């Protein structure tokens, strides 16, 4: 003996809409649970994507060479008497030999006052070479970048960020003008396109000058870092070893550099942010459990209010199994509807948040949407099962006689 699915759903639906307030409560609880999962995972994923995106804006297949060996035992290098040698332009040139290395850019970093006519401001100065532009995936809005050529030759030219341009020149065209940086004069040859903030520097408020000019300006031959772009991701380990070996030979057998790979950085952040997303998803899942308990409560009330009906259905030939199915169908119908409402609510919430934070791609990941749905239906099943079993085990006569 079996009831059709359509009949069961129709029967349950009629029972549910007879108590709209009760149905609304359950729907509300479930939909808030589902919506919070979708919104929170959306935010978590958005944050993750944002950070990863920022990291990839550093460039691709990037290795960053820093002076000094940073190990767990940082003090050991002092104890063993090893001294840190500066990274130099000669070191940079020596790296260009490897066939797996695509680009190398030395970096000197400092700050100086830049001025034009009466305006001046404190600016971050980057000394580098022509390679920097493509290595960092930057682009220009005007003029040209540092020219190719001998990196040891200083020349009085500079490329300025968008904000520097507008602050020093306001409306006038900066290209070709001479600005003062520190105690020297530089001719502006280009303006960087406005790309907003990169994760490490604000490209809008920097000035880029040839690396040799920066050495003169800051009166030091030491490089801040050397950026190395490899031809492929696979060759990174090989290139890393090559860099260590080469620099070691050049530094009298002392291994006094640290190489950070972009992948390692990315991986760490990816892990941290994934863990964060999972944590807030877990918190949201708790609210679904609370919704489940509410379902159970309301279902138990329903069972006690529908005892006469249960007794009657038994008298009319419903088996224990059928009664159970009817009551579980109630719970599932409510949880599916609640989940669907929650999905709408969550996606709507995500859209709304996106309006306020346009840079954040906070769309909920597919697994969260499917997961929220599955969890809410399971919640309905799980918390609907107990009241349903209670309903099925009700003694039919007692429930009938009571009226």
């Amino acid at each position: 003996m079996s009831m059709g699915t359509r009949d069961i759903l129709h029967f349950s639906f009629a029972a549910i809409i007879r108590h709209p307030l009760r149905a609304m409560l359950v729907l509300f609880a479930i939909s808030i649970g589902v919506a919070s999962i979708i919104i929170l995972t959306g935010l978590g994923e958005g944050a993750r994507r944002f950070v990863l995106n920022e990291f990839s804006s550093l460039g691709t297949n990037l290795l960053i060479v820093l002076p000094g060996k940073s190990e767990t035992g940082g003090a050991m290098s002092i104890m063993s008497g090893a001294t840190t040698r500066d990274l130099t332009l000669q070191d940079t040139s020596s790296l260009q030999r490897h066939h797996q290395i695509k680009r190398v850019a030395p970096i000197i970093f400092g700050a100086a006052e830049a001025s034009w006519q009466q305006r001046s401001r404190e600016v971050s100065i980057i000394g580098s070479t022509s390679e920097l532009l493509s290595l960092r995936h930057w682009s220009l809005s005007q003029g040209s970048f540092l020219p190719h050529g001998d990196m040891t030759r200083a020349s009085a030219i500079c490329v300025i960020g968008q904000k520097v341009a507008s602050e020093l020149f306001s409306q006038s065209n900066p290209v070709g003008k001479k600005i003062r940086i520190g105690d020297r004069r530089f001719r502006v040859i280009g303006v960087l396109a406005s790309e907003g903030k990169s994760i490490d520097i604000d490209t809008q408020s920097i000035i880029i000058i040839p690396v040799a000019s920066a050495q003169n300006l800051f009166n030091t031959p030491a490089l801040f870092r050397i950026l190395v772009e490899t031809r492929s991701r696979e060759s990174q380990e090989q290139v890393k070893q090559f860099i260590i070996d080469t620099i070691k030979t050049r530094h009298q057998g002392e291994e006094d550099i640290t190489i950070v790979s972009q992948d390692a950085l990315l991986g760490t952040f990816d892990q941290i942010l994934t863990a964060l997303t999972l944590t807030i998803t877990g918190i949201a899942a708790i609210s679904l459990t609370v919704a489940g308990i509410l379902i159970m409560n309301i279902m138990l009330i329903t069972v006690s209010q529908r005892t006469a009906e249960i007794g009657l259905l038994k008298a009319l030939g419903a088996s224990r199994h059928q009664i159970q199915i009817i009551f579980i169908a109630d719970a599932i119908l409510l949880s599916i509807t609640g989940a669907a409402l929650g999905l709408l609510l969550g996606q709507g919430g995500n859209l709304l948040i996106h309006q306020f934070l346009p840079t954040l791609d906070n769309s909920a990941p597919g697994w969260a949407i499917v997961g929220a749905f599955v969890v809410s239906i399971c919640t309905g099943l799980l918390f609907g099962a107990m009241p349903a079993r209670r309903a099925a085990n009700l003694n039919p006569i007692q429930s009938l006689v009571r009226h």
Partner: protein
Amino acid sequence: MIELQNINRIFQVGDQQVHALKDINLTIQNGEYLSIMGPSGSGKSTLLNIIGMLDQPDSGSYHLQGKEVTHLSDNKQSIIRSSEIGFIFQFFHLLPRLTAAENIALPMMLAGIPHTERKERTDEILQRLDLTQRAHHKPEQLSGGQRQRVAIGRATIMRPKVLLADEPTGNLDRHAGHEVVKILEQLNQRGITLIVVTHDPELGERAHRKIEFIDGAINIDTGTKQA
């Protein structure tokens, strides 16, 4: 045929045992018209519940149409309840959210009978009970007599051989009650076994066989006599 042998039913009420049915032996032939009377608590409703398989005896055997049914699984019992037995209650027990037609069709829905057949059989019964005009009304829009007629429709839609009526007129005025009794007796004339539990002597007297219960035992049984 209903055959009850040495049926006992004991209820635990607090720390007291109530012997609701004491060694009941009763045989009811197919097509009989039987009334069960007696004071409240005499065990007549318990007997009706056991015959209807809504309750299990503590001991004894119950053969329905020659088949022992007391030890059947819940599922098998529900199939027999569905196909062999119709119930009519004093308080109708219609589902308020369903229309008259849907209430009548409910046992067919539980039995998984397809839609088209359900519709046909429901229409036929509605017509026979003079309820066609009321088919799509909810119970609250129906009079007491109409409600009980819907309940009769529901009890007979599966074409059972036995109809169990617990105070079928107890909640109706004289006129409506009389009409309901007439319908039940017509069903009996067409071969259905009609068992009526009642306080009402006038209703009880109409049955061809009268049983009186006192203290969980049969006091009087006028026996089977063909009308």
